């Protein structure tokens, strides 16, 4: 499944007046799901819209499915599905009417009725676009991006403003796309979305990619993971340390509060609890703090993602 890059961006620069939105950005996305993660204003949308052919690079090159999105737009457009961050539908059009229309612009579209049902758009009935809820508008935009059976879809913040249930439904659809061999580039500022969905995550800040890799790689790259528990004060930390794998740490932070650092996996958890059992310790409030993309982002940029 992972072979030729679906998107190749090299040294992309894009300015709006005096403001540099994208500042020498390099990005290679392979087949599968790539999440472009970053805070608002990082340059995510500008990057994606350059790939979609909406913006001309001030310098640098962009190739999508091997084609130039501006000069070879006619060849590229039928192969790519686009979900804009907002809008894109006639305000007086009904959801199924608009979706049927986009389907008609393609040679082998998906079954519109099935897609309408899948995304819960059937309940929109005769309501026109301007009166749909934000979530319904989002799901319609998603449906419009996939109805033409593209090879690659660009989803710009596909779950922004969705309730948890609708968010899950969107994730399920994105996973099904991947299973069926459709590549997905999605922008998000939801960490969990990137962790849940993406094969590959590119973290963007101030117009540059500052880290890229699988969610696991990115999370491993940063601080160690941590296991905490509380027990009676003054346990023999040296004895605990001996029971643990060589690269682990253990310490009593405050009387009765213990921290174990290292590669936290089920094996380590079992080791700690069995040591407690041997020493007659009831570990209260045992917790695992997995290092998340949120932490990675904070470490790399020194700021909160959702600023």
């Amino acid at each position: 499944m992972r072979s030729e890059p679906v998107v190749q961006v090299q040294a992309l620069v894009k300015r709006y007046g005096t403001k540099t939105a994208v500042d020498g950005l390099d990005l290679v996305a392979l087949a599968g799901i790539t999440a472009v993660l970053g805070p608002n204003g990082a340059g995510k949308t500008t990057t994606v819209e350059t790939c979609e052919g909406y913006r001309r690079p001030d310098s640098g090159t962009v190739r999508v499915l091997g084609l130039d999105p501006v000069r070879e737009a006619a060849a590229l457009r039928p192969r790519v599905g686009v979900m804009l961050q907002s809008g894109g539908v006639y305000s007086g059009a009904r959801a199924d009417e608009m979706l049927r229309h986009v389907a008609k612009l393609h040679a082998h579209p998906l079954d519109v009725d099935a897609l309408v049902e899948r995304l819960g758009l059937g309940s929109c009935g005769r309501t026109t676009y301007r009166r749909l809820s934000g979530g319904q508008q989002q799901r319609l935009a998603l449906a419009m991006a996939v109805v033409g059976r593209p090879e690659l879809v660009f989803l710009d913040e596909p779950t922004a403003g969705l309730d948890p249930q609708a968010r899950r439904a969107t994730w399920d659809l994105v996973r099904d796309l991947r299973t069926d061999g459709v590549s997905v580039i999605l922008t998000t500022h939801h960490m969990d979305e990137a962790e849940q969905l993406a094969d590959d995550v590119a973290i963007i800040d101030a117009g540059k990619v500052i880290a890229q890799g699988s969610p696991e790689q990115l999370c491993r790259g940063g601080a160690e993971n941590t296991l905490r528990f509380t027990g009676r004060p003054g346990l023999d930390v040296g004895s605990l340390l001996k029971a643990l794998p060589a690269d682990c740490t253990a310490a009593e932070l405050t009387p009765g509060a213990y921290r174990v650092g290292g590669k936290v996996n089920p094996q380590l958890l079992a080791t700690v609890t069995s040591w407690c059992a041997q020493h007659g310790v009831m570990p209260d409030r045992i917790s695992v703090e997995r290092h998340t993309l949120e932490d990675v982002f904070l470490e790399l940029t020194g700021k909160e993602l959702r600023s």
Partner: protein
Amino acid sequence: MTTTTTATGTYTPQPGAAPLLRMIGAQAALETKMLLRNGEQLLLTVIIPALLLALFGSVDIVDTGAGKAVDFLAPGILALAVMSTAFTGQAIATGFERRYGVLKRLASSPLPRWALMTAKTASVLVTEVLQVALLTAIAFALGWSPHGNPFAVLLLLLLGTAAFSGLGLLMAGTLKAEATLAAANLVFLLLLVGGGVIVPLDKFPPGAQDVLALLPISALSDGLRDVLQHGAGMPWGDLGILGVWAVVGLAAAGRFFRWE
């Protein structure tokens, strides 16, 4: 919302653009449907011209010169109908499509931009056919007796459509949607009064007449009147004025139109 997953293979890529004619046909049908569903647009393109024709054709309010009022009014109202659809209606609709990202979204679909514009034009023409049918029926009911060469009438209507479309798209593609809405309605009103639609141009001072006669609405209403009321041949002067407006308007729209 269903949580069941669809059978594997449902989304397997099979990209491709639909045949060009099918895309243009679908786009034109949708545009026409949107226009006919929009109450404000219908008011502008159907109700106002029909009311003006019925009112001024049956009640002698404006001095329309010798002959039946409807013979003077019908050509003017036909010109107004063309302006309301090709200019005012198209400008407002396109302005809001631009504002709400419809044009942007369609730009990434397989539909080429020129094909979108072709579809818009087709939708304008379909609307005009409906308008002309309705207004002609009203005019006949009021005792209208048209003369002249139908081919000359058709040419005037088409060239008038081209001229007003260019100007409407120029406005929609450069101004904000709200500004387009206000300006397009204002222009509609001003040209309704000062473009020889229901008020003969000779009611204006001589200096103003010369300028007003160069407006596209005046050229269209004057040309239609020459043919339909007076049975003239090809009104070359008016066709020339409309031709210049069409070339200038469409070229400027092509040059300055911004899709976002």
